[in-house]
């Protein structure tokens, strides 16, 4: 994409995000796990955790963040969350209860921890889905299926849509890849293993 301007990153935003992102992620996990005794739960915590990735995308560029993310983690979050919920629900049947009767598990305080585990499943699903929704919408404007790549969409607003190249080599990242901070930032340890 020759029309793409080199992405000029803002040091202020990068520094702020680097400072804030770990706290937001921690807080998202806290909200997910602490839903039993205070306001919170999987839905809220998942959205807050997903906001971390959105933050990183704004600080370091969407394509870079997308490359940095392990897609398998994303798929694992989305599918694994629903699967975890379903497994807990069905597992109760194995222990002689009914569907979703978490009280029958042979662990201390099965009700409380069963509910927490279900909340974790919800949180995983919501975090994964919101993250992928964001990237799907923000990345690549897909060309109409069955036509060649560029002709379908260069009629209007290429300046507005050029973030949307969907080519796998992601040339945008090559332009900025030389700058140290851009690469370093998303490689920071937080956010990788959100499950």
């Amino acid at each position, binding site marked *: 994409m020759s029309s793409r301007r080199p992405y000029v990153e803002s040091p202020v935003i990068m520094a702020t995000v680097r400072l804030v992102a770990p706290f937001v992620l921690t807080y998202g996990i806290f909200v997910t796990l602490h839903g039993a*005794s*205070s*306001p919170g*739960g999987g*839905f*809220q915590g*998942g*959205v807050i955790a997903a906001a971390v990735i959105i933050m990183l995308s704004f600080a370091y560029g969407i394509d870079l963040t997308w490359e940095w993310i392990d897609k398998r983690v994303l798929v694992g979050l989305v599918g694994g969350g629903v699967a975890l919920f379903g497994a807990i629900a069905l597992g109760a049947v194995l222990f002689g209860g009914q569907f979703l009767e978490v009280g029958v598990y042979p662990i201390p305080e099965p009700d409380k921890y069963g509910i927490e585990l279900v909340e974790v499943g919800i949180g995983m699903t*919501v975090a994964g*889905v*919101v993250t992928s*929704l964001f990237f*799907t*919408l923000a990345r690549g*404007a*897909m*060309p*109409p299926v069955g036509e060649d790549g560029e002709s*379908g*969409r260069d*009629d*209007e607003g290429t300046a507005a849509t050029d973030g949307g190249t969907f080519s796998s080599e992601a040339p945008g990242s090559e332009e900025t890849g030389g700058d140290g901070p851009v690469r370093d930032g998303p490689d920071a340890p937080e956010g990788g293993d959100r499950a």
Partner: protein
Amino acid sequence: MIEALFARYNYVVFALLLGIGLYIVIDDENLVKKVIGLNVFQTGIFLFFITVAVQDGAEPAVTSTGEGTFVNPLPHVLILTAIVVGVSLTALALALVVRIHEEYGSIREDVVVEVLERD
């Protein structure tokens, strides 16, 4: 009548929000603004549910004894899931808007209709 409405102020705002949301959906040509209008409409309904749950002098339902005055937790449950589902559906609607833009080159309803009629 007026007094009855005044004692039900939240429901009046609920009706207003429904009207405003409906107006945006009907009148605005821009599809993204139509989606915003749907969200306004949706939030009006959330307001209805949460207002039903309140009780004078009540606290949020965080308790281990069940003693005291609490708001009704059931509408809260319905609405907090509805908010997250609403976001997902908004994203789906926006994806459709993007797709319409790819297909017709515009997100204005009148232009899309024009393109459809021309073909």
